[in-house]
């Protein structure tokens, strides 16, 4: 029930922010659509701690700030590699450990790897990630586990 109410609130907020028409008729239709969608999702039993990850909300901003810095740094690194006279790449494929136990944590970790250019998740197994890196040192930087540790912190 908690999740259903949270879902309805988020949908209403989303509708209000997107609409820009605040007369009675439009608000009524908005409320109807929010209720309809909430009812469908409730019926599908698709609501759990994953679809409304309220437990993440407090910790997420700090992680996203850190991730943004990583994305910035790796972007500049790739720009440097692209504009070199000889493209400076030495690709590596490696298995990295995947300590996260929840699906959400695993997806956040894998997507964070993808979001930083230079490292790319190819495949995900029970306890490992297959990662393609544009050079050995990018892969080693990932293997120092800082990102992984931060994601684990997030899912706790």
């Amino acid at each position, binding site marked *: 029930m908690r999740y259903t109410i949270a879902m309805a609130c988020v949908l209403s907020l989303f509708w209000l922010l997107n609409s820009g028409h605040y007369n009675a008729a439009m608000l009524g239709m908005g409320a109807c659509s929010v209720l309809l969608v909430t009812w469908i999702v409730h019926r599908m039993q698709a609501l759990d701690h994953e679809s409304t990850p309220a437990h993440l909300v407090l910790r997420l901003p700090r992680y996203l700030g850190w991730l943004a810095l990583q994305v910035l740094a790796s972007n500049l690194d790739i720009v440097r590699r692209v504009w070199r006279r000889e493209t400076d790449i030495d690709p590596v494929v490696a*298995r990295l450990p995947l300590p996260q136990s929840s699906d959400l944590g695993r997806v956040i970790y894998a997507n964070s790897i993808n979001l930083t*250019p230079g490292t790319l998740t*190819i495949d995900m197994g029970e*306890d490992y990630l297959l990662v393609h890196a544009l050079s050995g040192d990018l892969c080693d930087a990932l293997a*120092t586990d800082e990102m992984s540790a931060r994601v684990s912190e997030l899912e706790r």
Partner: protein
Amino acid sequence: MVLHWLSEACLLAGSFLLLTGALGFLRFPDIYARIHACGVTETLATSLILVALLLKSEAALPQVKLLFILLFLMFSGPTASHALAKAAWQGGVRPRATRDAGERPASPAGR
């Protein structure tokens, strides 16, 4: 006035990054390396251009919408590149010119 120039600077930097992504796409040898090059266009270049548009727009609603677009792109971009890489890998495409294609048993951090 400051905002105006900041916005122009973001647009210029974003365009440069888009160009870099395209250049990387042409210069890099195989699909995996090219996905990395496109990563530049889909993360920082897109963010910079959306931020520039954000600074240019004066009403709150378009700004919120731009933020939503940014948010959705940050979710869909990495997922799409993963889908692409996984499809290539399962189709038997292996990275060209790798030091050790296949599986490196353990990273320095180890398992």
